């Protein structure tokens, strides 16, 4: 494939979580907005640094749970009261206490599914292919090393200056992350 003619961003490597956290905070102070950190373990506070804001996930889960709850109860009510009301051992058709367990289970099921699928969706996963994987050392991001990536789409991004900035942050190394362009999209400038 064609060599990297467009840059996805600059990738700085650190060996300690504290370092990358510090770097991210400084970068934000510097006014960088489009960046992300990649770590082999969740680092507390890091996401505020790289990308302030709260996730909508809990809301989604709540909605999912509500759907499961209502749907579950409706299902049972419809089946045993509306669709084919049987006389079952003299019990009322609408035996609501008997409908509770399944209502509960379906609530949990839907909420759980929403939590996971929502998390994936919001994270844009699955995404097996990503420019960062072009960087050979990035494979350490899932094991031992900590990375900060300032993306070229950042308004303040300037290849030279940003590289210098990152090196000042005490990165072990700073690498360009090439973005690959599909041949079908025609040549780049």
């Amino acid at each position, binding site marked *: 494939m064609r060599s990297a003619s467009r840059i996805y961003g600059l990738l700085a490597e650190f060996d300690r979580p504290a370092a990358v956290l510090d770097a991210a905070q400084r970068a934000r102070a510097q006014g960088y907005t489009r960046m992300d950190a990649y770590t082999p373990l969740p680092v507390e506070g890091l996401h505020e640094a790289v990308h302030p804001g709260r996730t909508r996930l809990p809301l989604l889960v709540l909605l999912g749970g509500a759907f499961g709850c209502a749907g579950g109860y409706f299902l049972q009510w419809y089946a045993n009261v509306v669709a*084919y009301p049987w006389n079952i051992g003299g019990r009322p058709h609408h035996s609501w206490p008997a409908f509770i367990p399944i209502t509960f289970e379906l609530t949990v099921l839907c909420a759980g599914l929403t939590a996971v*699928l929502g998390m*994936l*969706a919001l994270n844009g996963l*699955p*995404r*097996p*292919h990503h420019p960062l*994987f*072009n960087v*050979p050392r*990035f*494979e350490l991001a899932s094991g031992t090393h900590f990375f900060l990536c300032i993306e070229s789409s950042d308004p303040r991004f300037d290849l030279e200056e940003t590289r210098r900035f990152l090196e000042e942050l005490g990165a072990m190394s700073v690498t360009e992350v090439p973005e*690959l362009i*599909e041949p079908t999209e025609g040549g780049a400038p």
Partner: protein
Amino acid sequence: MAQIFHPSMNTLSKVSVFGAVFMVLAALWLGGWIQRSPYVTAVSVPREQPVPFSHEHHAAGLGIDCRYCHTSVMDSAFAGIPSTKTCMTCHSQIWKTADALAPVRASWATGVPIRWKRVHDLPDFVYFHHGIHVRNGIGCSTCHGRVNSMPLTWKTETLYMEWCLECHRQPEKFLRPRDRVLDMDWRPPADQIVLGRGLVERLGIAKERLSDCSTCHR
């Protein structure tokens, strides 16, 4: 390290994860659709018979009464299939040499019955009583369609339980006066519901009973 995956995998994987749900639903829907398709139900699929008997000709054309052949339809569980003798009452006089009727004559001569193909076949665990349906005013055509227009007989209803229940839950929608049950051209009048309610009332039909399991299954 190089990329492990081609960029197209991104779309592919997303689709496969988030589309799975819809695929399952589609499969279920397909199942239901096949179950109700003529392939399974044989609805409106004419049935080949050893003798190409035409209800159209006999009932509509010659105006023979249903009960002439289906003798026990009014009072027995089983409507009755005409014996070879019944056929021969006429066909010993007319069409004596018609090739189509050769099997009938053979049966009469040898005493070996004709083996008709069943068109309306219920599972063995369903107990259907023709007599009570006819007497309470369920017309032939309600379940069998306009048989008098069928050269070869076919099913016009699925005979699925859901179909039976339509009527067993709301008989008033389908009942007719008893003297009209044989009427092939019966159309429900505008005030069918009123008429039906009246009939249910007069015949003392216990509606709640009609959807008891033991009404049809024993």
